[in-house]
């Protein structure tokens, strides 16, 4: 099994050979079957050595510091039944020993105090511990020399048999193998960790990219919606003007003048919404309060709808409670815009349904009025009931198609109403359909007239 410094004369008893081989098998088996850690394996085998070859001390030492240091990884003392570790030997203190175990697989020092390899230990070590014979074997593996297995015998000096030398040599080989397996495992773990780290980084990057793409898609969708919202009335203006150039019938001309004017006003409203949204983002939106009757504003809003809309199916209902509260003092043009947006949505998304524009006393806030737009259309799917107020509608745009109206309309409407100190929300209508309602206080809150929105510093409010 091991070639070494065997002092070949002695007979090898067959029984010992069998016993040693069986023990080596057992050690290998134990390491494999119980997935022993290296430290546990070292304890198992040092204990095994003391028992198998009858020595009082067995230890495993790793070579460190460019081969200049041996550090004890595990020492078993059979008499005390005790493990210890961490003592250290320097090549500079024991040059002959380092040379000896580095050049021979096995050092069999039958008489340790005089053996050329071990006599450096004679004073202060061998004599103190009563060690008479030492049997050391190189630990090496594919990385080269890694350490030494050391067996120390006390009592009368003994002559190591070739079999004992072979056994300890084999134990040392197993130790080298165990060390190598452990290091490979660590490397595999490290690679695994590096891999996992890389995977996490890739996933994070992919998530960031997906988020950026999503934001980009929403931005594109928003721009498409806004652009559509601005172009449609602009085309009404320009198309109408082109028709006027060619049209001679007075009544038809009058009709197109009306369309152009209303398209222009609707366009102005859309432009104002876009600008207001930008002002809100910059924190500089300022509302303007004036005193007016709610019913007048609702009538005005109905009259200022997109040209050509079938306003005939809108029924205005002003309950006495809404009149009794007296005139409002808030931002009239933006309130009318909100009403216009809600009506515009109802006209679009509830085709052929009657539409009720109702004014009543506030239910949710104190000292306010409630305005609702009710239709008998398909209503808003539950999962979209909040999303429709998001300027950047979630999803594939189907929400916009199904309920989003202007894209900006509901979002800006909610912003306006919130700044007026009120609330705007959706509720399903009993029996089918939608109710979009808002409530505003009778008076515009003081702070709304110089409100800064989310940019809380640095930007002065325009007045």
């Amino acid at each position, binding site marked *: 099994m091991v070639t070494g410094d065997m002092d070949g004369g002695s007979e090898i008893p067959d029984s010992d050979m069998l016993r040693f081989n069986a023990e080596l098998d057992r050690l290998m088996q134990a390491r494999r079957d119980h997935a022993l850690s290296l430290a546990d394996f070292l304890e198992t085998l040092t204990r095994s050595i003391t028992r198998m070859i009858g020595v009082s001390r067995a230890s495993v030492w790793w070579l460190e510091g460019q081969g200049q240091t041996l550090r004890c990884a595990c020492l078993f003392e059979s008499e005390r039944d005790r493990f210890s570790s961490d003592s250290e030997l320097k090549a500079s203190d024991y040059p002959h020993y380092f040379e000896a175990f580095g050049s021979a697989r096995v050092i069999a020092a039958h008489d340790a105090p005089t053996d050329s390899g071990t006599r450096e230990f004679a004073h202060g070590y061998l004599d103190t511990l009563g060690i008479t014979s030492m049997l050391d074997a190189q630990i090496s593996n594919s990385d080269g020399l890694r350490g030494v297995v050391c067996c120390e015998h006390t009592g009368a000096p003994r002559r190591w048999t070739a079999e004992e030398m072979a056994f300890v040599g084999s134990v040392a080989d197993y130790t080298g193998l165990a060390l190598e397996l452990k290091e490979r495992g660590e490397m595999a773990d490290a690679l695994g960790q590096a891999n996992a780290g890389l995977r996490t980084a890739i996933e994070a990057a992919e998530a960031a990219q997906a988020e950026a793409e999503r934001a980009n898609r929403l931005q594109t969708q928003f721009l498409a919606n806004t652009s*559509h919202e601005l172009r449609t009335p602009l*085309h009404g203006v*320009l198309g109408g003007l082109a028709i006027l150039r060619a049209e001679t019938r007075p009544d038809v001309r009058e009709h197109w003048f009306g369309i152009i004017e209303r398209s222009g006003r609707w366009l102005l409203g859309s432009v104002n919404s876009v600008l207001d949204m930008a002002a809100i983002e910059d924190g500089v939106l300022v509302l303007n309060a004036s005193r007016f009757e709610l019913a007048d504003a609702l009538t005005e809003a109905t009259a200022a709808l997109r040209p050509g809309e079938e306003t005939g199916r809108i029924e205005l209902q002003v309950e006495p409670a809404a009149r009794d509260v007296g005139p409002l003092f808030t931002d009239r043009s933006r309130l009318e815009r909100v009403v216009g947006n809600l009506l515009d949505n109802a006209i679009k998304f509830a*085709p052929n349904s009657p539409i009720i524009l109702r004014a009543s006393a506030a239910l949710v806030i104190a000292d306010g009025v409630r305005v609702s737009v009710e239709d008998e259309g398909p209503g808003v799917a539950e999962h979209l009931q909040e999303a429709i107020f998001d300027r950047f509608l979630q999803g594939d745009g189907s929400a916009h198609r199904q309920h989003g*109206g202007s894209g900006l309309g509901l979002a800006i409407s909610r912003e306006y109403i919130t700044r007026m100190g009120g609330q705007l929300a959706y509720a399903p209508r009993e029996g089918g359909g939608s109710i979009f309602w808002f409530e505003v206080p009778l008076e515009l809150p003081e702070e709304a007239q110089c409100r800064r929105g989310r940019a809380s510093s640095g930007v002065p409010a325009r007045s």
Partner: protein
Amino acid sequence: MRRILIIDDDPVNREIFRWALSAEFEIHEMKSGIGAADRISGGDYDLVLLDLMMPIVDGAEVVRDLADINLGALARVLVVTAALNTNVTEELNGFPLAGIEARPYDPDEIKILVGRFLQ
């Protein structure tokens, strides 16, 4: 008289098209995409002017539905839209449509566009 179907949710757009085309063509109108695929399929129109951005059932959905029930009818559908959105046009390019065009607002241009597709 040749028949044209205009599908557009904006009443002013429909009116401009009607003003431009009604002297030469029989004009039919739909104000949304709801039921549009069936109507195009069975309507024997010489040309269909289909808007894209419409509530509830948009133009792209009309195209997809029509492709399912009567693929050949797509050859008479001209998609006209105010905002040419690349995502949508890319998808629609896969269908055998008459064309995809930016929607003109000038009546003269409308006549030219329609004339181009009806010779």
